[in-house]
C-alpha cells in the first residue's frame, strides 16, 4: 500500500491506473453543508417536552422512597430484660445479623422496605403482633399477597429457617420487634426452638390465609427461656436492669 505521507507518492492514488477525473467525480457532485438554520425552538416543542418532564419526575417521586432511609431509634438500655449481666445483648446481636444474613437486602437497613415491592418492618402490624406468626414467616418463608400498613404487597420471601439457627432467629426477631415494633416483647432462643420443632417437616412457604388459620390473632409463643440467665421474659420496666454491654 502506498504511503500517503511520502512526498513523491503524494499525488499518486490507490492504483496507478486511477483516472484522476473520476476520483473527483464523487466530490464534484457532493453538496456543501451549510450553516445550521436559525429556526427558534417553538413553543410547541416545549409543550411536547412537558409531559416527558412530568413523567420523569413522577417516576422519581414514585420510586425514590423518601430519598433517605428513616433512622432507627437509638437503643434504650432500660428495655433490656431484668437479670442483667448476661452473655449477649440480643438486640445488638440481632442488628448485626439483620445486616449480615441478608434481611436488609430487601427490607433495607432501616427496615422501611421498598415501596410496592418489599413490605416495611417499621411499625408493621406483623412485627408488633403475634411473635409466633412472625417466627413462622421467617422460618418457613411467605408467598402471595400480604397487607402491611394498608398497602398490598405480592412477592416471595424465601424460607430463612434452614439458613438460621433458633438462636440467631431469636436475636433478629428481638432486634426487629424492639427497634421497629414499638418495643414489642423480645424473643428467646427457646421460643424460636419451639417453632423450629413444630414445623420441622414443613417445606412449602406460608401464605397469609394459612398463617391466619394456623395461629389465631394475637396468639403468642409460650414464655420459655430468657436472657441473662433469668428464666423470666421480663417486662421492660423491670427495675435495676443493667444493660449487658459486653456484647459490643
Amino acid at each position, binding site marked *: 500500500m502506498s504511503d500517503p505521507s511520502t512526498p513523491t507518492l503524494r499525488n499518486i492514488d490507490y492504483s496507478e491506473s486511477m483516472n484522476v*477525473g473520476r476520483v473527483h467525480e464523487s*466530490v464534484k457532485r457532493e*453538496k456543501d*453543508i451549510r450553516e445550521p438554520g436559525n429556526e427558534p425552538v417553538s413553543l410547541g416543542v416545549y409543550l411536547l417536552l412537558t409531559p416527558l418532564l412530568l*413523567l420523569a419526575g413522577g417516576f422519581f417521586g414514585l420510586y425514590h422512597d423518601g430519598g433517605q432511609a428513616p433512622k432507627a431509634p437509638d437503643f434504650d438500655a432500660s428495655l433490656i430484660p431484668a437479670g442483667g449481666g448476661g452473655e449477649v445483648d440480643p438486640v445488638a446481636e440481632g442488628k448485626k445479623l439483620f445486616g449480615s444474613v441478608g434481611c436488609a437486602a430487601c427490607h433495607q437497613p432501616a427496615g422501611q422496605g421498598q415501596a410496592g415491592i418489599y413490605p416495611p418492618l417499621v411499625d408493621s402490624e406483623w412485627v408488633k403482633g403475634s411473635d409466633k406468626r412472625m417466627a413462622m414467616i421467617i422460618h418457613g418463608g411467605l408467598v402471595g399477597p400480604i397487607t402491611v400498613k394498608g398497602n398490598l404487597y405480592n412477592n*416471595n420471601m424465601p424460607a430463612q429457617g434452614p439458613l438460621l439457627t433458633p438462636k440467631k432467629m431469636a436475636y433478629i426477631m428481638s432486634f426487629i420487634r424492639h427497634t421497629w415494633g414499638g418495643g414489642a416483647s423480645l424473643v428467646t432462643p427457646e421460643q424460636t426452638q419451639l417453632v423450629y420443632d413444630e414445623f420441622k417437616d414443613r417445606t412449602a412457604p406460608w401464605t397469609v390465609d394459612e398463617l391466619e388459620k394456623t395461629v389465631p390473632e394475637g396468639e403468642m409463643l409460650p414464655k420459655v427461656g430468657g436472657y441473662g440467665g433469668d428464666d423470666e421474659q421480663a417486662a421492660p420496666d423491670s427495675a435495676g436492669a443493667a444493660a449487658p454491654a459486653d456484647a459490643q
Partner: protein
Amino acid sequence: MTSESTVVNQSNTGTVEDHLERAAIDRSTRLPVVFFLTSGVAWLAVSILLGVIASIKQHSPGFLDWDWLGFLNFGRVQPAFINAFVYGWCFQVGIAVAIWIMARLSRVELKNPVTLIVAGHLWNLGVSLGVLGILAGQGYSLEFLEFPKFVWPLLFVAYSAISIWMVVMFQVRKRSDAYVAQWYIVAACFWFPWIYLTANMMIHVLPVPGVMKSAAGAWYKSSLIYLFFVPIGLASSYFMIPKIVGRSIYSYGLSMVAFWTIAGVGAWTGLQKFLGGPLPPLLTAISGSAAILMLIPVVAIGINHFMTVRGHHGLIQYSPTLRFTFFGAIGFSVTCLVGAFNAIFGSTTSFTIAEDGFNMISLYFFFSMMMFGAIYFILPRIVGCEWLSRRMIQLHFWPSAYGAIGLGLWLVVGGIWQGISLEAWDSSTISAAGTSGSFLVGKSFIWTTFILFSNVVFVLHFLMMLFRLGRRTHEPTLLGHPQVHHAGQQLADGGAGA
C-alpha cells in the same frame, strides 16, 4: 436557501478548489479509515457468526456440540459475540466514520496518521485477546465488560491515542465555529475514556464491594450506549442528512437542546436495571428518570432531522446513504423509547430477554444502520470506485431493516411476557423461563434469515469495493432511477447526493 437555478452543480457543490480540497482530505484519511473500516467489517463477520451460534445455542444446546467445541457453549459464545460486536465492529466503524467526518468538517488533511494505525493495531490486539479469553473461559461477569482483566488497559490506551488525534484535528480546524457533528465527536472522544476508566477502576483496580460492582457494570453499559454510540451515530446523521439533501440543518437551537440533554442526562442512566433490587432506591429512581429524560433528544432530533429532509423525502428512495441514515435515525428514537419503557416497567422487564432486545435495537437498529449509511457514502470516495450493485445494497438494506425491527420488537415483547410469568408467585421460575423459549426460537429465525443473510451480502460487497472491483464510472450507485424530468431539481440533487 435552495437555489432555483437549474445549474445545480454551480450553486450547490462549491468551486473547483473545494473539490480539490475535499479530494485531498479524502486521500489523506484513506489509510486509517480503510484500516478501521476493514477491521471493523472483519469483526462484524466474526461477531455475526458468533451471534448466530449464541442465538441457536440458547434454545438448542445440542447445536455444534462436540467435545472439542466445548468453548462454544452459550455461556461463552454469547459474551464473545456481544463484545466482538461492540468493540470489534461498532467501535472501529465508529472511529473510522468519526475520523473522516472530523477531517472533512475541520477541513484539515490528516498528516502522517501512523499513531492512528498503531493504536488501531493495539485496539485489534485487545479485542482479539479479549474474545479469545472469553472463549477460553477467562471472561468476566459484567455485561459489555466480559473481556478478561488484562484487556482494558490496552483498549483504554488505544482509544486515548485515537481520540487525541481527533481532538488535534478539531483544534487546528480552519473555521473557528464548530458544526454539530463535531460537538458530538469531540464529546465522544472524552466521554468514552471517562466511563471506561471509571468502570474498570471500580471493578478491577479498586474494587467496590459486591452489589456495587453490578451497579458499576450496569452504569457503564448504559453510559456506553448513551455517551458513545449515540454521539457517534448522531454525528453521522448530522453530517449525512444535510450533505445529501443539500439543505442546512433545520434548527441550531434544537440541536443545542438535544446535545446538552444527552450530555447532562446520559451518564445518570443504567441503575434502573436494579429497580426494586438491593440498591439504595434513590439511585435507581434517578437512573430511571434519566432514561425517561432521554426522550427529550428524541423529540428535538426527530423534529430537526424530519424538517431538514422535509420536501425531499423522495431522496430516501434513491440514496443508499440517506436510506440507511434515516432508518438509523428512527432506530435512535426506538432506542430511547425502549430505554424509557424498560425503566418505567423495569420491575417486569429487567433480567429478561427485553434487555437483549434493547442491546440489539441500540447497537443494530440505531448504530449499525447509521454506520452502514456512512460507509455507503465514504467508501467510494476513499477507494475511488462506485458500489458495484444496486441490488446488493437493497439485499443489505431490507433484510437488515426487517431484522432490526423484528428482533427488537420480538425480544421486547418476549421479555414482557417472560417478566410477567416471573412475577407470578404461584408458578415456578423454571416455567417462567420456559415461556421465553418460543421467543428464543423466533430470535434464531430472525438472526439466520435476516441479519446473517444481509450482512453476508454487505461483507461481500465491501470486500469487492476494497479490492476495487466496484464500478468505474462517475455515476453514483443509486437505489432506483430518479426521474429527473418528473420531479425536477430535487431528484437531480438526489442523483448528485449519494
